[in-house]
């Protein structure tokens, strides 16, 4: 070999070493202005990477929470790494053996991550530091629970309610009164909601809607979950079977279909095409194109941003007559420690903070309520979300629901979305419903569409149940073949401080 070969081999070795042996992070590598305050303790601190989502003011809220933690002690420094598609990136990082120390995931990630042993169970850590599960609103805690153990804790919760445009109600006060409805309050049942919607809707001369009283497909994020407001659910825990074609779900789909036919599918399609993005002044509700809408706890932030003086009200979303309420779809972003984390104790200290003082900062700055039963006394003082009480009420309701925690939830949701599209577009002959209105129209639509709805939802049930059974069967097989869950690709479970005591 000639000298040049030695030089080349040397360069490769150096590059390898630089890549392999991690050097400690230097202050200059990060935001020098933000981090200047930590100059003295920088080298002494344990540095943690916290991968979390968020953008815009919600990112600022998260940063404020992390900053507060960094200032609160001088042992640990958390770097908030703003990450898009955080679940996929975290998954690959965990497989690759270089996970972040703390990760913020979505509710639907908990099941696949936890079942694969990719997250650390937190029960013992919680018990050790006196963080009681009793403290949380049960539904939110359940989101992070898998197989009876807690793998993730809620950070920012979501709940939904009915937003209504008070100006539109005022405008149509006399018509509402004439229809026997009270313009001073929002509807309390779905039947009432339909009647309000009827009065509030305005048409163009060509018969296309100019303004819709209520449009169930706006924003269209929870098209599959309407059945819950009719007293149904998508999964029966007792039997372990999915129930998309339960009578309540069929009723919900019929209700949706009535909107499609009553106002015209093609006309609604064009009407909806005129809506702008969610986060824009052309948002259908903000622009006044829709008078009532189902939206989440975050929505007042966006209304304030785009139309600060909008005159709107919020109330629990109505349920069908006879169905107890209030009920709301509940969701939460969660925080977890991935398996393979090298600084478990420090990571837990941060999570612990993020569940205490940090949670208060985060929820307040993001304009949301807290996922716990008794928020600190000062939390509500001067809270930016003036409708906080409504959301706290629906979140605390025992009738509020979270999505079924199934390994096939994504597929289930997509399949329901397809079923929704299909039923919404399912043609009812124009001749049949021409000139009909009120209950006669409803009966005709039901007569035409019910069999198709039953068939479509039945197919969804068969497909998803088959997939669910297959997944369960394969998991059983996997357990038999490879042993317990922890024997996954991510290596044996690390020593969890607290369990060894």
């Amino acid at each position: 070999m000639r000298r040049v070969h030695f030089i080349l081999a040397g360069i490769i070795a150096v590059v390898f070493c630089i890549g392999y042996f991690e050097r400690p992070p230097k202050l200059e590598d990060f935001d020098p202005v933000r981090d200047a305050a930590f100059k003295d303790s920088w080298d002494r601190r344990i540095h943690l990477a916290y991968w979390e989502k968020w953008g815009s003011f919600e990112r600022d809220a998260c940063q404020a929470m992390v900053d507060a933690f960094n200032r609160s002690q001088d042992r640990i420094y958390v770097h908030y790494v703003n990450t898009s598609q955080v679940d996929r990136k975290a998954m690959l990082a965990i497989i690759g053996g270089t996970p972040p120390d703390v990760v913020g995931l979505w509710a639907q990630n908990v099941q696949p991550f936890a079942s694969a042993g990719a997250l650390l169970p937190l029960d013992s850590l919680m018990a050790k530091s006196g963080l009681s599960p009793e403290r949380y609103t049960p539904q939110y805690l359940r989101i992070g629970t898998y197989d009876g153990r807690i793998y993730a804790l809620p950070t920012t919760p979501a709940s939904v309610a009915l937003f209504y445009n008070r100006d539109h109600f005022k405008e149509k006060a006399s018509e509402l009164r004439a229809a026997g409805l009270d313009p001073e309050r929002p509807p309390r049942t779905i039947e009432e909601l339909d009647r309000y919607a009827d009065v509030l809707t305005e048409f163009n001369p060509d018969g296309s809607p100019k303004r819709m009283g209520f449009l169930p497909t706006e924003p269209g994020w929870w098209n599959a979950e309407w059945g819950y407001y009719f007293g149904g659910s998508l999964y029966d825990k007792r039997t372990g079977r999915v129930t998309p074609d339960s009578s309540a779900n069929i009723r919900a789909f019929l209700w949706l279909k009535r909107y499609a036919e009553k106002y015209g599918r093609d006309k609604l399609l064009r009407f909806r095409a005129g809506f702008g993005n969610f986060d824009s002044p052309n948002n259908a509700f903000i622009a006044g194109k829709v008078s009532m809408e189902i939206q989440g706890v975050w929505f007042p932030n966006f209304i304030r941003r785009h139309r600060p003086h909008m005159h709107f009200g919020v109330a629990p979303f109505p349920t069908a007559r006879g169905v107890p309420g209030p009920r709301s779809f509940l969701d939460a972003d969660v925080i977890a420690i991935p398996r393979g984390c090298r600084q478990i104790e420090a990571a837990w200290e941060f999570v612990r903070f993020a569940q205490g003082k940090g949670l208060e900062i985060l929820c307040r700055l993001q304009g949301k309520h807290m996922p716990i039963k008794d928020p600190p006394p000062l939390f509500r003082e001067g809270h930016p979300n003036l409708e906080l009480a409504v959301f706290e009420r629906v979140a605390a309701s025992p009738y509020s629901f979270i999505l079924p925690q199934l390994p096939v939830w994504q597929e289930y949701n997509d399949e329901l979305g397809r079923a929704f599209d299909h039923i919404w577009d399912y043609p009812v002959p124009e001749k049949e419903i021409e000139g009909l209105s009120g209950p006669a129209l409803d009966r005709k639509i039901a007569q035409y569409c019910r069999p198709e709805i039953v068939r479509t939802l039945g197919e969804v049930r068969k497909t998803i149940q088959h997939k669910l059974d297959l997944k369960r069967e394969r998991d059983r097989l996997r357990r038999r073949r490879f042993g317990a869950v922890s024997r996954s690709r991510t290596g044996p479970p690390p020593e969890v401080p607290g369990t060894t005591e």
Partner: protein
Amino acid sequence: MRASVRKSLTGYSFVLPWLIALGLFIGFPFLGGFYFSFCDFPPLKTPMFIGLDNYAQLLHDPVFHRSLGVTLIYGAAAIPLGVLLALTLALLLNTRIRGQALYRVIFFLPHLVPTVVTALLWLWIFNPDYGLLNLFLGKLMHGVDVWTGLFFDLEAAARGRILPVRWSAMLAAGPVAALLAFGPWLRSELTKRAGLFRLVRFAAALSCTLAVLPVLYVVMVRFMPGDMRKLHSPGWLSDASPFPAAVPFAPSWALWGIVVMSMWGVGQMAVIYLAKLQDVPIQLYEAADIDGATWIQKTRHITLPLISPVILFNVVMAIIGTFQVFTEPYIMTRGGPEDKTRFVALFIYDQAFQYQNVGYAAAVAWVLFLVIVGLTLLAFRLSRRHVYYAGR
């Protein structure tokens, strides 16, 4: 060491970096994917061998069947349209006109725009209410309505009866105009030289077109009233209904949207045609001119046979491209409405990254690979009789 051996060793060592990368980044995933297609493999867990289960599942998966159908329908619509459009464009760009280079650049430019940007741009163009496309389409269809309304009662036609009204006698002008424009005296010296006669010919051709148009349109309204009504302002990407509704396996409006959008990128194909067009020996055209061949005859008998290998190349590339369509539906429709734009590539992505069925996704990818190989071989087989290689 023998000189020849040393020589080959040196050669191999030069291509070694490439070979390593090929093996590592293409060969390994390729074969790895083949193995994983026989496994149950959620990415966070150990792959578990399950034999042919994934392939068996494929046979009964309605979503996969739909996505394969969408991809094939898209190919059947977009490939011929794209090839035709690119060829027409290339023939036009091949004429000797002023500013030719500029035109070439203009038509090639869209190809340089990243797909993501194009998709976001077309999302606006396709907006049913504010989009540019519907604005023009609406105006155009309105014009056609008004013009046809002069001769026929469109509402009656939509109900199934074609009734001529007031001006229908004018329609008789159509055949006369056609005779004037394309009659046997077409080739006489007179029409070739005199300016006035050329003007008359042009006017006659125009009135012939204007006379044929309402007849065609009213027939279309008679047989597909719903489609024609929708054509005034289609819902494009959010509309799952097929167009034309009466044709089995017709693409949905949403899929037509993606087909129309794909035409935006034919510039690249056109440039390849153009390169080959300029390679056609000029003597052949000269000889044809001497024999008195028309432009159409020259195109049919000289140009097309000589550029046929390039047509084959473009068709094969288009077939492969069809099975790789991902960005457009991912950004514009996410596979909806009703799976009408769920291309196979999107299906694979969803299986692997949304549903965490990497093994199943690998099986689909392998089936897709075999389908592409099969279709490409078919294209070569079918082309054997029609492609002319000057070298052989």
